[in-house]
């Protein structure tokens, strides 16, 4: 999924679970998108064909899979004793949700490099055209919900 979707989804989820995401909006944005940094080398390699790429398991490092989930979970567990507990919980939701959404919507190799089995759950569309339609429409819906949530009428 695109980074705007990740940010909007995490913002709304944290707003529902912990309330008042607005105070942590920058933190949520950074934590929602930083995992996608591992796509950069792949994007550089893809060059002009970047729009045709669908960011499957070949575009990710092990930090986008269960290995990354274990790594970031242990890191957050260690930081829990030193940092604000609310910030750690927000971080946990952002990281876990990002990895879970990418697992649900794209092809992944969850136990890379220990198992090279590539899986796709067949819940959401994967064909080029259908995936673009799904991604754009879901991002717009989340954008509308985000706008409604932050507009003064609801505050």
């Amino acid at each position, binding site marked *: 999924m695109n980074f705007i979707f990740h940010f909007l989804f995490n913002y709304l989820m944290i707003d529902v679970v*912990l309330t008042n995401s607005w105070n942590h909006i920058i933190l949520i944005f950074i934590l929602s998108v930083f995992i996608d940094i591992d796509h950069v080398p792949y994007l550089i390699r893809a060059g002009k064909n970047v729009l045709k790429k669908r960011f499957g398991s070949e575009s990710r490092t092990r930090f986008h899979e269960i290995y990354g989930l274990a790594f970031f979970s242990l890191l957050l567990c260690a930081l829990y004793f030193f940092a604000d507990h609310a910030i750690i*919980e927000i971080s946990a939701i952002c990281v*876990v949700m990002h990895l879970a959404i990418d697992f*649900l919507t794209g092809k992944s190799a969850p136990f890379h490099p220990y198992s090279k*089995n590539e899986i796709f*759950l067949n*819940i959401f569309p994967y064909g080029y055209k259908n995936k673009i339609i799904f991604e754009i429409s879901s991002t717009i819906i989340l954008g509308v919900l985000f706008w409604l949530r932050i507009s003064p009428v609801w505050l």
Partner: protein
Amino acid sequence: MRKIIDRAGSVLPLPNVNPDVLSGMSVLTSMLFLAFTGFSMFLSFVFLIATLFLDWFDGLIARKYGKSSETGYITDTASDRFSEGIIFSAFFFPWFYLFALNCLLSIISVAKKRHFILPLRQIFLVFYAFLLFF
């Protein structure tokens, strides 16, 4: 106990659906559990039960229709870890610590091809039921 439930399930007329879809659905119900924790404990409890039911059901269907495979095991184990991560991110201490341990155990299980993983969500269900009803 599991063998008895599986034997009972094998005689029932179950739908021949893709077990991977059910595994993915259990991640979605975990998200619904998390979303409802702030509004209604009862509804979130229902979604927690749905998550565990789907997790049990995908294995049952895979065994009944001969769809068990290494890829299926990988899908099921990965879905379970994502589901746990989502559920325990709002109940950090001590659950998220146990979840981190379970992630490591999952990696070891796949690498060594031996399954040893803690049934955290089942234990959490009992804990959550206790919070809800007492």
